[in-house]
């Protein structure tokens, strides 16, 4: 198998929390790109589907033909990471609804914890991703209820799964891009074939702040 020299990670830019992911990639020194059209998929090593509103993202992907382009690129080897809504879009089964991309053998329940007020922060140790505990942010999050045989569980909490991966896809129901931790972005980049330095300590960026996303959304 020829080694690809693709090194750009794209973030699907139709709706949702795009700036936050771009900022994390930037902090890791990874070349990034907003993905809105077919041509934006060229030479992409990986695609992040951000958190947002899964029903809206699915509709927009269908209306603008992005779904077909995404599936074609996936079949050519594009790696994908879905956060929160992204997890819902990638799932083969979504309780009570049609699926959207249906690329990953998982079963998901939307809004599993309740509404905005049921959002919460916690942390967990996911050794494969970071030697130190990682902060987790759950916002109107879904739960992964079941995973298929070829899917590896990265984080199980109580009776649900919060992070999982297959050979080509990573899913997290929480939002690493809303925390100071760069660990998951690093983990995904490595999954996409990029080379990144190893750190002995964890991957928390001490200068990240709640409004670091504004760097990517300057107006003035």
């Amino acid at each position, binding site marked *: 198998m020829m080694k690809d020299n693709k090194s750009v990670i794209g973030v699907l830019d*139709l*709706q949702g929390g795009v700036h936050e992911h771009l900022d994390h990639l930037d902090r890791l020194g990874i070349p990034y790109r907003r993905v*809105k059209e077919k041509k934006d998929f060229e030479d992409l090593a990986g695609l992040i589907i951000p958190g947002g*509103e899964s*029903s*809206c993202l699915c*509709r*927009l992907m269908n*209306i*603008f033909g992005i779904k077909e382009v995404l599936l074609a690129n996936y079949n050519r080897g594009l790696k994908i990471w879905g956060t929160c809504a992204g997890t819902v879009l990638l799932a083969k089964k979504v309780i009570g609804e049609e699926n959207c991309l249906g690329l990953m053998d998982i079963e998901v329940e*939307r*809004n599993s914890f*309740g*509404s*905005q*007020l*049921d959002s919460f922060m916690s942390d967990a140790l996911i050794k494969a991703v970071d030697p130190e505990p990682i902060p987790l942010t759950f916002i*109107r999050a879904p739960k992964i209820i079941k995973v298929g045989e070829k899917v590896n569980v990265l984080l199980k909490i109580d009776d649900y799964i919060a992070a999982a991966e297959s050979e080509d896809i990573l899913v997290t129901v929480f939002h690493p891009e809303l925390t100071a931790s760069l660990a998951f972005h690093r983990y995904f980049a490595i999954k996409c074939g990029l080379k990144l330095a190893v750190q002995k300590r964890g991957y928390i960026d001490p200068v990240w702040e*709640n*409004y670091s996303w*504004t760097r990517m*959304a*300057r*107006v*003035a």
Partner: protein
Amino acid sequence: MSDPAMIAEIKKAVSIPVMAKARIGHFVEAQLLEALRIDYIDESEVLTPADEECHIDKRKFNIPFVCGARNLGEAVRRIAEGAAMIRTKGEAGTGNVVEAVRHMRTMNREIRQLAQMPIEEVTGFAKTNGIPYELALKIKELGRLPVVNFAAGGLATPADAALMMQLGCDGVFVGSGIFKSSNPQLRARAIVKATAYFNDPQKVLEASMGLGDAMPGIEIAQIPPEQILAGRGW
């Protein structure tokens, strides 16, 4: 605040986030809406203010608030009170985007001034505009508000939505512009498409075709000054 039974029904009927309005300063309406466990509260000048001196102390609540503003001073005062999101006030219910444009341009002009001035001038700017000093410094450092800023108040067409996005908004709210048009479902879909691809005139153009009539627009100058909604709250 609308009939809470109706809000509860709406929450049951949809799987997407629900936002409801509370009167300016009416912290008990906010408590009730939080108890209903909807997702956000809009402390809105569209409703008759309950308090003409004070807005709600939003930091007391867990639920996020969105507040309207006409200029940077108003926006930052609301953020100081705990608003999680800002929107332009525009002039709701008029189908006339001119006021939303005015408010967005004003806020951005003031942010640019603040971002570029020498730091000694920030004190005077903060005083003149009624902005808490530390927040003025933060906004100067960021070059924008530390929260999202949406367009609202008078948007009626896909082109209006794209206009506000190109002026620098993070998103748009559309109310009467959809529900008072001749085909609300078509128009809502079109505005979402135009917002997603606001920088692509071809896509905004396609979204604008065949929508039927927009809601009738109202000239701002024809509204008696005391009835202008944007004047409520400060």
